[in-house]
């Protein structure tokens, strides 16, 4: 029996090989490589990333694939698990390129992993389109093969500053009379965000009255908020990952601090609406993308179509990490078509010339490889829901500025 089974296995294996070989010769397959965090501390977002890539592959392949020159190619991705550790990520990138012969890379999850992999792809002149590394420092090293579809960290809250300037009149001021209070965590990523806010504030001539750097183990910011209450700034900007958003939302409400505008990052990961209910109302939150945006493309349709398809496939609404990952695949598909070749150098040049509208937003890279065409969006929490209020071109509703005073709220 055992012998028979072995024979059967060998036969099927041979058949499968033959079938595989014939399939490959009949149509072409472009295999991209990706090291994604499927275990470890980034496993949740790593899975969102992989799901985003896979959904885009499926939709593109179901539509027949990508036209490259006179051939039509299917897309595929070879995945490895980087275990959320940068060193492992770099090792796997090396393996994908050298052993598996991958000529195109998709990005991992997080800035840290992207930072570890970028030198490898650069060394082998393999293009990498990444969707989850937002740190500014990725784009100051002169990398030629790195392209990012997402907005980088210094843009995270810049739209909040612009919104403050637009609404200065409602607060009874001119844009250059507006004062800002910053409470931003003391880590490289958050400090990038701070740098962006500072630049924009300078542009409008706004004054910074509080500039506190929150500690990593933050769970109380009453001393900062006491200062804010005394100085009465027009805008309070908070960024300190999920704990910053949670602590600020809770304590601003507890201390009944009245500020015309409060803008934060990481509201969704802190789940401020679910946890704090009314206390979260009118908070402005930065996000890369929202399903309600009116962007659309030919592959997925509108942003909402993408969200619905994603939910149908994976059983949950796509967070922005999944959306930007899917967009990275669209960017590759577009570049393959325009390059008319699978030569990495030609594809790289095509990528550099990308000017593409997607359901995730417009993608156009500057010479450092970051996407300069897509703005960050700002949500405002209105009646227990996130509503897009900026940039005004894509807004669903007008931002409520100034926020009602606590004494006037029910």
């Amino acid at each position, binding site marked *: 029996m055992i012998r028979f089974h072995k024979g059967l296995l060998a036969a099927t294996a041979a058949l499968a090989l033959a079938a595989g070989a014939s399939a490959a010769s009949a149509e072409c397959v472009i295999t991209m490589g990706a090291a994604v965090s499927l275990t470890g501390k980034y496993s949740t977002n790593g899975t969102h990333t992989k799901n985003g890539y896979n959904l885009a592959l499926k939709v593109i392949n179901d539509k027949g694939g990508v036209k490259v020159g006179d051939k039509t190619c299917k897309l595929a991705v070879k995945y490895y698990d980087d275990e959320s550790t940068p060193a492992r990520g770099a090792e796997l990138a090396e393996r994908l390129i050298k052993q598996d012969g991958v000529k195109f890379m998709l990005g991992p999850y997080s800035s840290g992993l992207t930072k570890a992999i970028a030198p490898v792809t650069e060394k082998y002149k393999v293009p990498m389109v990444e969707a989850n590394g937002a740190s500014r420092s990725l784009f100051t090293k002169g990398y030629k093969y790195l392209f990012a579809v997402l907005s980088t960290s210094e843009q995270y809250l810049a739209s909040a500053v612009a919104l403050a300037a637009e609404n200065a009149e409602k607060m009874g001021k001119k844009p250059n009379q507006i004062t800002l209070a910053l409470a931003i965590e003391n880590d490289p990523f958050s400090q990038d965000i701070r740098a962006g806010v500072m630049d924009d504030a300078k542009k409008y001539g706004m004054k910074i009255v509080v500039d506190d750097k929150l500690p990593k183990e933050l*769970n109380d910011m009453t*001393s900062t908020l*006491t200062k804010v209450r*005394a*100085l009465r700034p027009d805008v309070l900007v908070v960024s300190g990952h999920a*704990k910053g958003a949670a*602590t600020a939302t809770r304590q601003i409400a*507890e201390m009944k601090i009245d500020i015309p505008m409060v803008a934060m990052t990481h509201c969704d990961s802190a789940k401020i609406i679910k946890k704090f209910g009314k206390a979260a109302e009118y908070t402005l939150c930065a996000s890369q993308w929202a399903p309600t945006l009116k962007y659309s493309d030919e592959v997925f349709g509108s942003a909402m179509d993408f969200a619905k398809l994603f939910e149908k496939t994976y059983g949950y609404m796509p967070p922005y990490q999944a959306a930007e990952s899917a967009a990275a695949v669209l960017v590759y598909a577009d570049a393959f078509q325009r390059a008319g070749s699978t030569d990495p150098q030609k594809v790289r040049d095509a990528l550099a010339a990308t000017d593409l509208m997607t359901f995730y937003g417009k993608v156009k890279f500057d010479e450092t490889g970051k996407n300069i065409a897509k703005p960050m969006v700002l949500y405002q929490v209105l009646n227990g829901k996130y509503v897009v209020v900026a940039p005004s071109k894509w807004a669903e509703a007008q931002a409520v500025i100034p926020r009602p005073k606590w*004494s006037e709220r029910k």
Partner: protein
Amino acid sequence: MDNLNLLIQAPILNVQLLLDGLWIGAIFALAAFGMALVWGVMNIINVAQGEFVMLGGFITLMVMEAGLSPLLGIPAAAIVLFVLGWLLYRVIIWRIVDADMFISLLATFGISIMMQQLMNEIFGSDVRTAESGLGMFYLFDNMVTVSQIKVLAFVLAFAIGLALWLFLKRSRLGQAIRATSQNPRAARILGIDTDRVYAATYAINAALCGAAGALVVMAYSIHPYVGLPYTVRSFMIVIMAGLGNLGGVIAAGLGLGAAEQFAGFLLGAEYQLAFVFLLLVVVLVWRQMVLARRRQYLK
């Protein structure tokens, strides 16, 4: 300097900072009671102190998720942590009671890392809060705000301190604990089961931290890596107050809490913890000088 001006021009801010400092200081003091006890009786510096606080917070969250008031989390966390402390003693701590201080530091450090990772695996690294359902006091036209849960924490810290003092003075076990801390060998000769005394001491410490954690999750927030600041501050308070001085622990706790708030206000939040460490160095140097003088008297 601007910030100092602000404090002088708007004196009411001092009240807010002082009160906020006292509230958080009371919680520090609660964790520090336990550290002083374990250190004094067993000669172990428990590095897992902050992790007990963190565990207390998560137990309160579980109580809340079961549909009960998170206020019940205070006794629940204390009881669960008491049992856990006892078990930890029976499995690990008894092996290191008589060992070198370095070994006990390593062992409790190991326990702390294990607890962090375990909680991260079970609950994830999200920040969590529990709503106590208590409200706020608004004083001076909303210029000073006081959350009632923090007042409760303050009162509880005093009550527990008093209860602990009475327990050590009056009860049989309390007397045994004190006897053991003075001279374990003599205590053993006189028929005190020192092993049981140590187990009780360690368990009481864990229970105190658990109660503190329940208050932290209702007044502030908690995540698996929140422990270290509580360990550092407990350590600092015990150094300042000395061992076996519960009144001193409360005073040092409140003082530290207030000093930190003012430092955060004047120097910016980024220097708040740096200030704590600076204070630690100053206190250590000062104590060293005082002790040196005393030694000269003895000569």
